[in-house]
Protein backbone atom coordinates (compact mmCIF):
# COMPACT_ATOMS: atom_id res chain seq x y z
CA UNK A 1 0.00 0.00 0.00
CA UNK A 2 1.23 3.50 -0.84
CA UNK A 3 0.42 6.20 1.70
CA UNK A 4 1.10 9.85 0.99
CA UNK A 5 1.09 12.13 4.02
CA UNK A 6 0.69 15.83 3.27
CA UNK A 7 2.60 18.02 5.69
CA UNK A 8 3.12 21.73 6.09
CA UNK A 9 6.08 23.74 7.27
CA UNK A 10 4.65 26.49 9.47
CA UNK A 11 6.00 29.40 11.51
CA UNK A 12 6.43 28.45 15.15
CA UNK A 13 3.19 29.43 16.83
CA UNK A 14 5.09 30.49 19.96
CA UNK A 15 7.27 32.84 17.90
CA UNK A 16 6.58 36.48 17.04
CA UNK A 17 4.70 36.18 13.74
CA UNK A 18 4.26 39.01 11.26
CA UNK A 19 2.90 39.62 7.80
CA UNK A 20 5.10 40.74 4.93
CA UNK A 21 4.19 43.78 2.79
CA UNK A 22 2.17 41.61 0.38
CA UNK A 23 0.19 40.27 3.38
CA UNK A 24 1.70 36.79 3.14
CA UNK A 25 3.33 35.41 6.27
CA UNK A 26 6.79 36.85 6.84
CA UNK A 27 8.94 33.78 7.43
CA UNK A 28 12.25 35.57 7.84
CA UNK A 29 12.09 36.42 11.52
CA UNK A 30 10.48 33.33 12.91
CA UNK A 31 11.58 29.71 13.16
CA UNK A 32 9.64 27.18 11.16
CA UNK A 33 8.69 23.64 12.00
CA UNK A 34 6.54 20.71 10.95
CA UNK A 35 2.95 21.67 11.80
CA UNK A 36 2.10 19.83 15.01
CA UNK A 37 -1.28 18.84 13.63
CA UNK A 38 0.49 17.11 10.73
CA UNK A 39 2.55 15.06 13.16
CA UNK A 40 -0.67 13.23 13.98
CA UNK A 41 -1.06 12.36 10.30
CA UNK A 42 2.49 11.02 10.13
CA UNK A 43 1.85 9.03 13.32
CA UNK A 44 -1.30 7.43 11.91
CA UNK A 45 0.54 6.49 8.71
CA UNK A 46 3.28 4.85 10.79
CA UNK A 47 0.71 2.96 12.88
CA UNK A 48 -1.12 1.75 9.79
CA UNK A 49 2.20 0.53 8.44
CA UNK A 50 3.13 -1.20 11.71
CA UNK A 51 -0.25 -2.93 11.96
CA UNK A 52 -0.33 -4.06 8.35
CA UNK A 53 0.78 -7.46 7.06
CA UNK A 54 1.48 -5.96 3.65
CA UNK A 55 4.32 -3.72 2.63
CA UNK A 56 3.43 -0.11 3.24
CA UNK A 57 5.43 2.72 1.74
CA UNK A 58 5.00 6.12 3.36
CA UNK A 59 5.81 9.22 1.35
CA UNK A 60 5.65 12.65 2.98
CA UNK A 61 4.78 15.50 0.67
CA UNK A 62 5.13 19.20 1.27
CA UNK A 63 4.64 22.33 -0.77
CA UNK A 64 6.77 25.14 0.56
CA UNK A 65 10.00 27.13 0.54
CA UNK A 66 13.53 25.74 0.82
CA UNK A 67 13.38 25.54 4.62
CA UNK A 68 10.35 23.26 4.41
CA UNK A 69 12.89 20.46 4.03
CA UNK A 70 13.14 20.62 7.85
CA UNK A 71 9.53 19.48 8.11
CA UNK A 72 10.22 16.60 5.72
CA UNK A 73 13.28 15.67 7.67
CA UNK A 74 11.36 15.44 10.91
CA UNK A 75 8.71 13.23 9.29
CA UNK A 76 11.44 11.02 7.83
CA UNK A 77 13.09 10.84 11.27
CA UNK A 78 9.80 9.70 12.74
CA UNK A 79 9.84 6.82 10.27
CA UNK A 80 8.41 7.81 6.86
CA UNK A 81 10.21 6.17 3.93
CA UNK A 82 10.71 8.98 1.45
CA UNK A 83 9.82 12.59 0.79
CA UNK A 84 8.73 14.90 -1.99
CA UNK A 85 9.31 18.63 -1.81
CA UNK A 86 7.40 20.84 -4.25
CA UNK A 87 9.22 24.13 -4.37
CA UNK A 88 8.87 26.98 -6.84
CA UNK A 89 9.25 30.74 -6.52
CA UNK A 90 5.89 31.16 -8.27
CA UNK A 91 4.18 29.40 -5.35
CA UNK A 92 4.55 32.37 -2.98
CA UNK A 93 1.09 33.46 -1.82
CA UNK A 94 -0.77 30.37 -3.00
CA UNK A 95 -4.15 29.97 -1.25
CA UNK A 96 -5.91 26.79 -0.14
CA UNK A 97 -7.46 26.17 -3.55
CA UNK A 98 -4.10 26.54 -5.28
CA UNK A 99 -2.39 24.36 -2.70
CA UNK A 100 -4.94 21.61 -3.26
CA UNK A 101 -4.19 21.73 -7.00
CA UNK A 102 -0.45 21.37 -6.45
CA UNK A 103 -0.96 18.59 -3.91
CA UNK A 104 -3.37 16.75 -6.22
CA UNK A 105 -0.94 16.81 -9.13
CA UNK A 106 1.93 15.74 -6.89
CA UNK A 107 -0.06 12.95 -5.23
CA UNK A 108 -1.09 11.62 -8.66
CA UNK A 109 2.46 11.76 -9.92
CA UNK A 110 3.75 9.98 -6.81
CA UNK A 111 1.05 7.28 -6.91
CA UNK A 112 -1.13 6.53 -3.88
CA UNK A 113 -3.74 4.33 -2.26
CA UNK A 114 -4.34 6.55 0.75
CA UNK A 115 -3.64 10.21 1.45
CA UNK A 116 -3.47 11.28 5.11
CA UNK A 117 -3.59 14.91 6.22
CA UNK A 118 -3.74 16.71 9.52
CA UNK A 119 -7.05 18.34 10.51
CA UNK A 120 -5.73 21.83 9.68
CA UNK A 121 -2.47 23.73 9.58
CA UNK A 122 -1.46 25.50 12.76
CA UNK A 123 -0.92 28.78 10.87
CA UNK A 124 -3.79 29.13 8.38
CA UNK A 125 -6.12 26.82 10.38
CA UNK A 126 -8.64 26.64 7.53
CA UNK A 127 -8.88 22.85 7.52
CA UNK A 128 -10.28 22.70 3.99
CA UNK A 129 -7.33 21.32 2.03
CA UNK A 130 -8.06 17.60 2.62
CA UNK A 131 -11.61 17.99 1.26
CA UNK A 132 -10.42 20.09 -1.70
CA UNK A 133 -7.72 17.53 -2.43
CA UNK A 134 -10.21 14.64 -2.42
CA UNK A 135 -12.47 16.52 -4.84
CA UNK A 136 -9.59 17.20 -7.19
CA UNK A 137 -8.50 13.57 -7.05
CA UNK A 138 -12.08 12.36 -7.45
CA UNK A 139 -11.84 9.95 -4.53
CA UNK A 140 -13.83 9.58 -1.28
CA UNK A 141 -12.94 11.74 1.70
CA UNK A 142 -13.17 10.73 5.34
CA UNK A 143 -12.15 13.74 7.36
CA UNK A 144 -11.55 14.70 10.98
CA UNK A 145 -11.11 11.15 12.23
CA UNK A 146 -10.15 10.50 15.83
CA UNK A 147 -9.71 6.78 15.36
CA UNK A 148 -8.65 4.96 12.22
CA UNK A 149 -8.44 1.41 10.87
CA UNK A 150 -7.34 0.31 7.43
CA UNK A 151 -8.22 -3.21 6.37
CA UNK A 152 -8.88 -5.01 3.08
CA UNK A 153 -8.85 -1.91 0.93
CA UNK A 154 -11.15 0.02 3.24
CA UNK A 155 -10.50 2.86 5.61
CA UNK A 156 -12.82 3.09 8.60
CA UNK A 157 -12.86 5.74 11.25
CA UNK A 158 -14.69 7.60 13.94
CA UNK A 159 -15.52 11.28 13.69
CA UNK A 160 -16.50 12.90 16.98
CA UNK A 161 -18.88 15.80 16.72
CA UNK A 162 -20.46 17.98 19.38
CA UNK A 163 -23.63 15.92 19.54
CA UNK A 164 -22.71 12.54 18.07
CA UNK A 165 -19.92 10.27 16.93
CA UNK A 166 -20.08 9.05 13.35
CA UNK A 167 -18.57 5.87 11.98
CA UNK A 168 -17.25 6.53 8.49
CA UNK A 169 -15.99 4.16 5.86
CA UNK A 170 -14.50 4.58 2.41
CA UNK A 171 -12.92 2.27 -0.11
CA UNK A 172 -9.38 3.03 -1.20
CA UNK A 173 -8.07 5.07 -2.85
CA UNK A 174 -9.24 7.80 -0.50
CA UNK A 175 -8.23 10.94 1.38
CA UNK A 176 -8.51 11.10 5.12
CA UNK A 177 -7.63 13.67 7.76
CA UNK A 178 -6.98 12.98 11.43
CA UNK A 179 -7.49 15.11 14.51
CA UNK A 180 -5.27 15.79 17.49
CA UNK A 181 -7.27 13.12 19.36
CA UNK A 182 -6.08 10.32 17.05
CA UNK A 183 -3.06 9.42 19.18
CA UNK A 184 0.08 11.19 20.38
CA UNK A 185 2.76 11.52 17.75
CA UNK A 186 6.04 9.79 18.53
CA UNK A 187 9.32 11.60 18.96
CA UNK A 188 11.96 10.91 16.35
CA UNK A 189 14.36 8.35 17.80
CA UNK A 190 18.11 8.96 17.52
CA UNK A 191 18.26 5.99 15.16
CA UNK A 192 15.47 7.53 13.09
CA UNK A 193 17.34 10.83 12.95
CA UNK A 194 20.48 9.12 11.68
CA UNK A 195 18.52 7.00 9.19
CA UNK A 196 16.59 9.99 7.81
CA UNK A 197 19.54 11.51 6.04
CA UNK A 198 19.89 8.40 3.87
CA UNK A 199 16.24 8.48 2.75
CA UNK A 200 15.39 9.90 -0.69
CA UNK A 201 13.98 13.42 -0.95
CA UNK A 202 12.74 14.39 -4.42
CA UNK A 203 12.37 18.02 -5.45
CA UNK A 204 9.70 18.98 -7.97
CA UNK A 205 8.79 22.36 -9.37
CA UNK A 206 5.62 23.52 -11.12
CA UNK A 207 6.80 22.37 -14.54
CA UNK A 208 7.25 18.84 -13.20
CA UNK A 209 3.56 18.92 -12.31
CA UNK A 210 2.32 20.61 -15.53
CA UNK A 211 1.00 23.57 -13.56
CA UNK A 212 1.15 27.06 -15.03
CA UNK A 213 2.46 29.86 -12.82
CA UNK A 214 -0.79 31.85 -13.12
CA UNK A 215 -2.79 28.98 -11.61
CA UNK A 216 -1.04 29.45 -8.27
CA UNK A 217 0.71 32.11 -6.23
CA UNK A 218 -0.79 35.45 -5.25
CA UNK A 219 -1.92 36.04 -8.85
CA UNK A 220 -3.79 32.77 -9.12
CA UNK A 221 -5.31 32.94 -5.65
CA UNK A 222 -9.12 32.83 -5.39
CA UNK A 223 -8.97 34.41 -1.99
CA UNK A 224 -7.33 37.71 -1.21
CA UNK A 225 -6.16 39.14 2.10
CA UNK A 226 -7.27 42.75 2.20
CA UNK A 227 -5.82 43.71 5.52
CA UNK A 228 -4.24 42.19 8.58
CA UNK A 229 -4.07 43.55 12.08
CA UNK A 230 -2.43 42.41 15.26
CA UNK A 231 -4.69 40.71 17.71
CA UNK A 232 -5.61 43.16 20.49
CA UNK A 233 -3.92 42.57 23.80
CA UNK A 234 -5.78 40.31 26.17
CA UNK A 235 -8.18 42.07 28.45
CA UNK A 236 -8.84 41.23 32.05
CA UNK A 237 -11.22 38.33 32.69
CA UNK A 238 -14.58 38.51 34.38
CA UNK A 239 -14.56 37.90 38.09
CA UNK A 240 -17.70 36.37 39.51
CA UNK A 241 -18.16 37.09 43.18
CA UNK A 242 -20.37 34.57 44.90
CA UNK A 243 -23.04 36.34 46.87
CA UNK A 244 -25.55 33.56 46.65
CA UNK A 245 -25.98 33.84 42.88
CA UNK A 246 -22.42 32.77 41.90
CA UNK A 247 -23.45 29.48 40.36
CA UNK A 248 -26.13 31.06 38.21
CA UNK A 249 -23.77 33.79 37.07
CA UNK A 250 -21.14 31.21 36.12
CA UNK A 251 -23.68 29.20 34.15
CA UNK A 252 -24.93 32.33 32.40
CA UNK A 253 -21.36 33.30 31.52
CA UNK A 254 -20.63 29.87 30.04
CA UNK A 255 -23.95 29.76 28.19
CA UNK A 256 -23.36 33.20 26.71
CA UNK A 257 -20.10 31.96 25.21
CA UNK A 258 -21.70 28.71 24.10
CA UNK A 259 -19.52 26.49 26.34
CA UNK A 260 -22.66 24.84 27.71
Amino acid at each position, binding site marked *: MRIVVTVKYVPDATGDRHFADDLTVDRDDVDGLLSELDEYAVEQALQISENSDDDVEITVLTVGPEDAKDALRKALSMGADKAIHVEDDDLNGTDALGTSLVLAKAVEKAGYDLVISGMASTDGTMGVVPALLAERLGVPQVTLLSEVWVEDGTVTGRRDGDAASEQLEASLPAVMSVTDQSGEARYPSFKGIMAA*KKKPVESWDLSDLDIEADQVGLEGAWTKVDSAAERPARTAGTIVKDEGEGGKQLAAFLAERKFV
Partner: protein
Amino acid sequence: MSTLDILSDDEQFMVRTVQDFVDKEVKPVVQELEHSNSYPEALIEQMKRLGIYGLAVPEEYGGTPVSTPCYVLITEELARGWMSLAGAMGGHTVVAKLLLHFGTEEQKRRWLPRMATGEIRATMALTEPGGGSDLQAIRTVARKDTDGYVVNGVKTWITNSRRSQLIALLCKTDPAASPAHQGISILLVGHGPGLTVSRDLPKLGYKGVESCELSFDDFRAPAEALLGGVEGKGFAQMMKGLETGRLQVAARALGVGRAALEDALAYAQERESFGKPIWKHQSIGNYLADMATSLTAARQLTLYAAREAEAGRRVDMEAGMAKLFASETAMQIALNAVRVHGGYGYSTEFDVERYFRDAPLMIVGEGTNEIQRNVIASQLVKRGGLEA
Protein backbone atom coordinates in the same frame (compact mmCIF):
# COMPACT_ATOMS: atom_id res chain seq x y z
CA MET B 1 25.60 31.82 17.90
CA SER B 2 23.89 28.96 19.59
CA THR B 3 25.69 26.57 21.90
CA LEU B 4 24.47 23.80 19.62
CA ASP B 5 26.42 25.13 16.65
CA ILE B 6 29.43 23.01 17.59
CA LEU B 7 27.37 19.88 16.85
CA SER B 8 26.57 18.30 13.50
CA ASP B 9 23.07 18.85 12.07
CA ASP B 10 21.98 15.39 13.19
CA GLU B 11 23.25 15.91 16.72
CA GLN B 12 21.57 19.30 16.93
CA PHE B 13 18.33 17.61 15.93
CA MET B 14 18.83 15.01 18.67
CA VAL B 15 19.37 17.64 21.36
CA ARG B 16 16.32 19.57 20.16
CA THR B 17 14.26 16.39 20.23
CA VAL B 18 15.23 15.83 23.87
CA GLN B 19 14.47 19.48 24.61
CA ASP B 20 11.02 19.00 23.11
CA PHE B 21 10.53 15.80 25.11
CA VAL B 22 11.49 17.56 28.33
CA ASP B 23 9.17 20.52 27.74
CA LYS B 24 6.16 18.44 26.73
CA GLU B 25 6.50 15.22 28.72
CA VAL B 26 8.72 15.87 31.73
CA LYS B 27 7.98 19.40 32.94
CA PRO B 28 4.22 18.83 33.34
CA VAL B 29 4.63 15.73 35.54
CA VAL B 30 7.91 16.17 37.37
CA GLN B 31 6.54 17.92 40.45
CA GLU B 32 4.05 15.21 41.26
CA LEU B 33 6.47 12.34 40.58
CA GLU B 34 9.18 14.01 42.62
CA HIS B 35 7.09 14.81 45.66
CA SER B 36 5.67 11.30 45.77
CA ASN B 37 9.15 9.83 45.18
CA SER B 38 7.72 7.75 42.31
CA TYR B 39 9.85 5.90 39.83
CA PRO B 40 9.29 7.59 36.42
CA GLU B 41 8.48 4.39 34.58
CA ALA B 42 6.67 6.01 31.62
CA LEU B 43 9.38 8.62 31.10
CA ILE B 44 12.13 6.00 31.22
CA GLU B 45 10.25 3.94 28.62
CA GLN B 46 10.12 7.00 26.37
CA MET B 47 13.81 7.59 26.94
CA LYS B 48 14.48 4.02 25.82
CA ARG B 49 12.53 4.60 22.61
CA LEU B 50 14.38 7.84 21.95
CA GLY B 51 17.68 5.97 22.14
CA ILE B 52 19.07 7.56 25.32
CA TYR B 53 20.50 4.23 26.48
CA GLY B 54 22.41 3.64 23.24
CA LEU B 55 24.29 6.95 23.14
CA ALA B 56 27.64 5.34 23.99
CA VAL B 57 27.07 2.08 22.10
CA PRO B 58 28.58 1.73 18.59
CA GLU B 59 26.27 1.10 15.65
CA GLU B 60 27.58 -2.43 15.13
CA TYR B 61 26.15 -3.28 18.56
CA GLY B 62 22.86 -1.54 17.83
CA GLY B 63 23.45 1.89 19.36
CA THR B 64 23.50 5.43 18.05
CA PRO B 65 26.79 6.79 19.32
CA VAL B 66 27.15 10.55 19.64
CA SER B 67 30.06 12.88 20.25
CA THR B 68 30.95 13.71 23.85
CA PRO B 69 29.73 17.34 23.52
CA CYS B 70 26.40 16.02 22.22
CA TYR B 71 26.21 13.56 25.11
CA VAL B 72 26.81 16.44 27.53
CA LEU B 73 24.08 18.59 25.99
CA ILE B 74 21.55 15.74 25.93
CA THR B 75 22.29 15.04 29.59
CA GLU B 76 21.89 18.75 30.35
CA GLU B 77 18.47 18.76 28.69
CA LEU B 78 17.28 15.74 30.69
CA ALA B 79 18.51 17.29 33.93
CA ARG B 80 16.81 20.56 33.03
CA GLY B 81 13.57 18.60 33.20
CA TRP B 82 14.48 16.44 36.17
CA MET B 83 17.97 15.64 37.42
CA SER B 84 16.84 12.13 38.37
CA LEU B 85 16.28 11.29 34.69
CA ALA B 86 19.88 12.14 33.90
CA GLY B 87 20.83 10.00 36.91
CA ALA B 88 18.92 7.09 35.43
CA MET B 89 21.20 7.02 32.39
CA GLY B 90 24.57 8.22 33.69
CA GLY B 91 25.96 5.04 35.23
CA HIS B 92 24.58 3.08 32.30
CA THR B 93 26.70 5.13 29.89
CA VAL B 94 29.81 4.70 32.00
CA VAL B 95 29.37 0.92 32.01
CA ALA B 96 28.80 0.98 28.23
CA LYS B 97 32.08 2.88 27.87
CA LEU B 98 33.87 0.42 30.16
CA LEU B 99 32.66 -2.47 28.01
CA LEU B 100 33.58 -0.66 24.83
CA HIS B 101 37.09 0.27 25.90
CA PHE B 102 38.05 -2.73 27.99
CA GLY B 103 35.56 -5.57 27.45
CA THR B 104 36.40 -8.75 25.55
CA GLU B 105 34.58 -9.20 22.24
CA GLU B 106 32.41 -11.83 23.89
CA GLN B 107 31.49 -9.41 26.70
CA LYS B 108 30.63 -6.67 24.21
CA ARG B 109 28.40 -8.99 22.19
CA ARG B 110 26.73 -10.27 25.29
CA TRP B 111 25.83 -6.93 26.84
CA LEU B 112 26.00 -4.00 24.44
CA PRO B 113 23.14 -4.80 22.03
CA ARG B 114 20.62 -5.14 24.83
CA MET B 115 22.09 -2.14 26.66
CA ALA B 116 21.65 -0.03 23.51
CA THR B 117 17.87 -0.47 23.63
CA GLY B 118 17.62 -0.10 27.39
CA GLU B 119 16.31 -3.67 27.69
CA ILE B 120 19.29 -4.18 29.97
CA ARG B 121 20.25 -1.30 32.18
CA ALA B 122 23.58 -1.05 33.90
CA THR B 123 24.94 0.57 37.03
CA MET B 124 28.29 0.87 38.79
CA ALA B 125 29.12 -0.30 42.28
CA LEU B 126 32.16 1.52 43.65
CA THR B 127 31.40 3.25 46.92
CA GLU B 128 31.44 1.33 50.20
CA PRO B 129 30.01 2.26 53.57
CA GLY B 130 33.56 2.56 54.92
CA GLY B 131 34.69 5.03 52.28
CA GLY B 132 33.77 6.67 49.01
CA SER B 133 36.41 8.46 47.05
CA ASP B 134 39.39 6.44 48.33
CA LEU B 135 38.81 3.62 45.86
CA GLN B 136 42.09 1.86 46.53
CA ALA B 137 40.90 1.16 50.06
CA ILE B 138 37.81 -0.81 49.05
CA ARG B 139 37.14 -3.96 51.06
CA THR B 140 34.87 -5.95 48.78
CA VAL B 141 36.82 -9.07 47.86
CA ALA B 142 36.38 -11.51 44.98
CA ARG B 143 38.22 -14.74 45.79
CA LYS B 144 39.05 -16.93 42.81
CA ASP B 145 38.34 -20.65 43.01
CA THR B 146 37.91 -23.36 40.38
CA ASP B 147 34.43 -22.21 39.30
CA GLY B 148 35.04 -18.48 39.19
CA TYR B 149 34.82 -15.84 41.91
CA VAL B 150 33.26 -15.76 45.35
CA VAL B 151 32.37 -12.19 46.30
CA ASN B 152 31.97 -10.78 49.82
CA GLY B 153 31.47 -7.17 50.81
CA VAL B 154 29.08 -4.24 50.89
CA LYS B 155 28.54 -1.46 48.34
CA THR B 156 26.46 1.64 48.86
CA TRP B 157 24.86 4.54 46.94
CA ILE B 158 24.13 2.20 44.05
CA THR B 159 21.74 3.95 41.67
CA ASN B 160 18.94 1.90 40.09
CA SER B 161 20.01 -1.18 42.05
CA ARG B 162 16.91 -3.30 41.52
CA ARG B 163 16.27 -2.07 38.01
CA SER B 164 19.75 -2.78 36.70
CA GLN B 165 20.43 -6.21 35.26
CA LEU B 166 24.14 -5.49 34.97
CA ILE B 167 26.36 -4.21 37.77
CA ALA B 168 29.97 -3.20 37.15
CA LEU B 169 31.40 -4.18 40.52
CA LEU B 170 34.72 -2.77 41.65
CA CYS B 171 36.41 -5.25 43.97
CA LYS B 172 39.73 -6.68 45.07
CA THR B 173 40.78 -9.88 43.37
CA ASP B 174 44.12 -9.63 45.19
CA PRO B 175 43.67 -7.93 48.59
CA ALA B 176 47.38 -8.30 49.34
CA ALA B 177 48.61 -6.54 46.22
CA SER B 178 51.03 -3.67 46.62
CA PRO B 179 50.41 -1.06 45.41
CA ALA B 180 46.79 -1.75 46.26
CA HIS B 181 45.36 -0.65 42.90
CA GLN B 182 47.09 -3.56 41.16
CA GLY B 183 44.82 -5.95 43.03
CA ILE B 184 41.60 -4.26 41.90
CA SER B 185 39.32 -5.66 39.17
CA ILE B 186 35.86 -5.03 37.74
CA LEU B 187 33.36 -7.88 37.66
CA LEU B 188 30.26 -7.73 35.46
CA VAL B 189 27.55 -9.28 37.62
CA GLY B 190 23.78 -9.55 37.81
CA HIS B 191 21.33 -10.24 40.60
CA GLY B 192 21.46 -13.75 42.04
CA PRO B 193 21.87 -15.81 45.21
CA GLY B 194 24.20 -14.12 47.67
CA LEU B 195 23.39 -10.60 46.48
CA THR B 196 20.77 -8.70 48.43
CA VAL B 197 19.61 -5.11 48.18
CA SER B 198 19.99 -4.52 51.88
CA ARG B 199 18.83 -0.92 52.25
CA ASP B 200 17.28 2.04 50.46
CA LEU B 201 19.06 5.25 51.34
CA PRO B 202 16.90 8.22 52.30
CA LYS B 203 17.92 11.34 50.40
CA LEU B 204 17.54 15.13 50.37
CA GLY B 205 16.80 15.15 46.64
CA TYR B 206 17.46 12.89 43.65
CA LYS B 207 14.04 11.40 44.23
CA GLY B 208 12.25 8.83 42.12
CA VAL B 209 15.42 6.91 41.45
CA GLU B 210 16.57 4.48 44.09
CA SER B 211 19.98 4.61 45.75
CA CYS B 212 20.69 1.43 47.66
CA GLU B 213 23.10 -0.61 49.66
CA LEU B 214 24.12 -3.96 48.14
CA SER B 215 25.38 -6.86 50.26
CA PHE B 216 27.43 -9.61 48.71
CA ASP B 217 27.52 -12.73 50.81
CA ASP B 218 29.39 -15.59 49.13
CA PHE B 219 27.95 -14.34 45.85
CA ARG B 220 29.26 -16.39 42.91
CA ALA B 221 30.38 -14.86 39.61
CA PRO B 222 31.80 -16.90 36.72
CA ALA B 223 35.38 -16.34 35.56
CA GLU B 224 34.02 -14.74 32.35
CA ALA B 225 32.56 -11.91 34.46
CA LEU B 226 36.01 -10.33 34.75
CA LEU B 227 36.02 -7.17 32.61
CA GLY B 228 38.68 -7.59 29.91
CA GLY B 229 39.62 -11.05 31.18
CA VAL B 230 42.73 -9.88 33.06
CA GLU B 231 42.85 -9.26 36.80
CA GLY B 232 44.32 -6.15 38.39
CA LYS B 233 43.22 -3.69 35.71
CA GLY B 234 40.04 -2.52 37.39
CA PHE B 235 41.34 0.65 38.99
CA ALA B 236 42.74 2.08 35.76
CA GLN B 237 39.63 0.97 33.89
CA MET B 238 37.35 2.70 36.36
CA MET B 239 39.44 5.88 36.36
CA LYS B 240 38.89 6.08 32.60
CA GLY B 241 35.19 5.37 33.00
CA LEU B 242 34.87 8.07 35.63
CA GLU B 243 36.10 10.70 33.18
CA THR B 244 32.79 10.15 31.39
CA GLY B 245 31.02 9.98 34.74
CA ARG B 246 32.37 13.37 35.80
CA LEU B 247 31.40 14.98 32.52
CA GLN B 248 27.94 13.49 32.98
CA VAL B 249 27.64 14.89 36.48
CA ALA B 250 28.88 18.29 35.27
CA ALA B 251 26.17 18.16 32.58
CA ARG B 252 23.54 17.33 35.19
CA ALA B 253 24.63 20.39 37.15
CA LEU B 254 24.30 22.50 34.00
CA GLY B 255 20.75 21.23 33.54
CA VAL B 256 19.73 22.05 37.11
CA GLY B 257 21.41 25.45 36.85
CA ARG B 258 19.67 26.21 33.59
CA ALA B 259 16.27 25.19 34.90
CA ALA B 260 16.78 27.43 37.94
CA LEU B 261 17.87 30.36 35.78
CA GLU B 262 14.96 29.89 33.36
CA ASP B 263 12.43 29.81 36.19
CA ALA B 264 13.98 32.81 37.91
CA LEU B 265 14.11 34.80 34.68
CA ALA B 266 10.46 34.09 33.92
CA TYR B 267 9.33 34.82 37.46
CA ALA B 268 11.29 38.09 37.62
CA GLN B 269 9.41 39.34 34.58
CA GLU B 270 5.98 38.24 35.81
CA ARG B 271 6.19 39.31 39.39
CA GLU B 272 5.75 42.97 40.11
CA SER B 273 6.60 45.04 43.15
CA PHE B 274 6.63 48.80 43.68
CA GLY B 275 4.96 49.17 40.30
CA LYS B 276 7.43 47.34 38.10
CA PRO B 277 8.57 43.82 37.26
CA ILE B 278 11.08 42.80 39.92
CA TRP B 279 13.91 42.24 37.42
CA LYS B 280 14.02 46.01 37.05
CA HIS B 281 15.07 46.32 40.65
CA GLN B 282 18.82 46.29 40.44
CA SER B 283 19.28 43.77 43.25
CA ILE B 284 17.24 41.20 41.35
CA GLY B 285 18.64 42.10 37.93
CA ASN B 286 22.15 41.58 39.28
CA TYR B 287 21.26 38.09 40.45
CA LEU B 288 19.99 37.20 36.99
CA ALA B 289 23.09 38.64 35.34
CA ASP B 290 25.43 36.74 37.63
CA MET B 291 23.47 33.50 37.29
CA ALA B 292 23.56 33.64 33.50
CA THR B 293 27.22 34.61 33.39
CA SER B 294 28.40 31.82 35.67
CA LEU B 295 26.18 29.27 33.94
CA THR B 296 27.62 30.20 30.57
CA ALA B 297 31.15 29.88 31.95
CA ALA B 298 30.35 26.48 33.48
CA ARG B 299 28.85 25.29 30.24
CA GLN B 300 31.80 26.36 28.13
CA LEU B 301 34.22 24.76 30.58
CA THR B 302 32.25 21.51 30.45
CA LEU B 303 32.07 21.58 26.66
CA TYR B 304 35.82 22.24 26.55
CA ALA B 305 36.43 19.12 28.65
CA ALA B 306 34.00 17.22 26.41
CA ARG B 307 35.86 18.27 23.27
CA GLU B 308 39.16 17.22 24.82
CA ALA B 309 37.64 13.83 25.67
CA GLU B 310 36.30 13.56 22.13
CA ALA B 311 39.81 14.18 20.81
CA GLY B 312 40.93 11.14 22.79
CA ARG B 313 43.01 13.02 25.32
CA ARG B 314 43.23 12.29 29.01
CA VAL B 315 40.70 14.55 30.73
CA ASP B 316 40.74 13.65 34.41
CA MET B 317 41.82 17.18 35.26
CA GLU B 318 39.51 18.88 32.72
CA ALA B 319 36.48 16.77 33.62
CA GLY B 320 37.30 17.36 37.30
CA MET B 321 37.37 21.12 36.73
CA ALA B 322 34.06 20.97 34.86
CA LYS B 323 32.41 18.87 37.54
CA LEU B 324 33.77 21.08 40.34
CA PHE B 325 32.82 24.38 38.75
CA ALA B 326 29.48 23.34 37.23
CA SER B 327 28.24 21.79 40.48
CA GLU B 328 29.23 24.76 42.65
CA THR B 329 27.66 27.05 40.04
CA ALA B 330 24.42 25.07 40.00
CA MET B 331 24.18 25.27 43.78
CA GLN B 332 24.72 29.03 43.72
CA ILE B 333 22.18 29.52 40.93
CA ALA B 334 19.63 27.34 42.70
CA LEU B 335 20.05 29.37 45.89
CA ASN B 336 19.75 32.65 44.00
CA ALA B 337 16.67 31.35 42.19
CA VAL B 338 15.12 30.81 45.62
CA ARG B 339 16.01 34.40 46.53
CA VAL B 340 14.48 35.74 43.29
CA HIS B 341 11.29 33.82 44.04
CA GLY B 342 11.15 35.19 47.58
CA GLY B 343 8.74 33.30 49.82
CA TYR B 344 7.50 31.25 46.90
CA GLY B 345 11.02 29.96 46.37
CA TYR B 346 10.71 28.17 49.69
CA SER B 347 7.35 26.70 48.75
CA THR B 348 7.13 23.16 47.43
CA GLU B 349 4.51 24.38 44.94
CA PHE B 350 7.33 25.83 42.86
CA ASP B 351 10.17 23.94 41.19
CA VAL B 352 13.03 26.01 42.55
CA GLU B 353 13.05 24.25 45.92
CA ARG B 354 13.71 21.01 44.02
CA TYR B 355 16.71 22.51 42.22
CA PHE B 356 17.99 23.57 45.61
CA ARG B 357 17.68 20.00 46.92
CA ASP B 358 19.03 18.35 43.73
CA ALA B 359 22.07 20.58 43.20
CA PRO B 360 24.16 19.32 46.16
CA LEU B 361 24.23 15.78 44.74
CA MET B 362 26.57 16.96 42.02
CA ILE B 363 28.85 18.50 44.67
CA VAL B 364 29.25 15.32 46.69
CA GLY B 365 28.65 12.65 44.02
CA GLU B 366 31.06 11.07 41.53
CA GLY B 367 34.05 12.09 43.67
CA THR B 368 33.47 14.98 46.05
CA ASN B 369 34.56 18.41 44.96
CA GLU B 370 37.33 18.19 47.55
CA ILE B 371 38.63 15.11 45.73
CA GLN B 372 38.32 16.93 42.40
CA ARG B 373 40.56 19.66 43.72
CA ASN B 374 43.11 17.05 44.77
CA VAL B 375 43.03 15.57 41.27
CA ILE B 376 43.35 18.99 39.66
CA ALA B 377 46.25 20.01 41.91
CA SER B 378 48.18 16.79 41.40
CA GLN B 379 47.63 16.96 37.64
CA LEU B 380 48.79 20.58 37.59
CA VAL B 381 52.03 19.55 39.28
CA LYS B 382 52.45 16.50 37.09
CA ARG B 383 51.76 18.37 33.84
CA GLY B 384 53.77 21.42 34.87
CA GLY B 385 50.78 23.73 35.03
CA LEU B 386 48.16 24.59 32.45
CA GLU B 387 49.05 24.39 28.80
CA ALA B 388 49.46 27.72 27.07
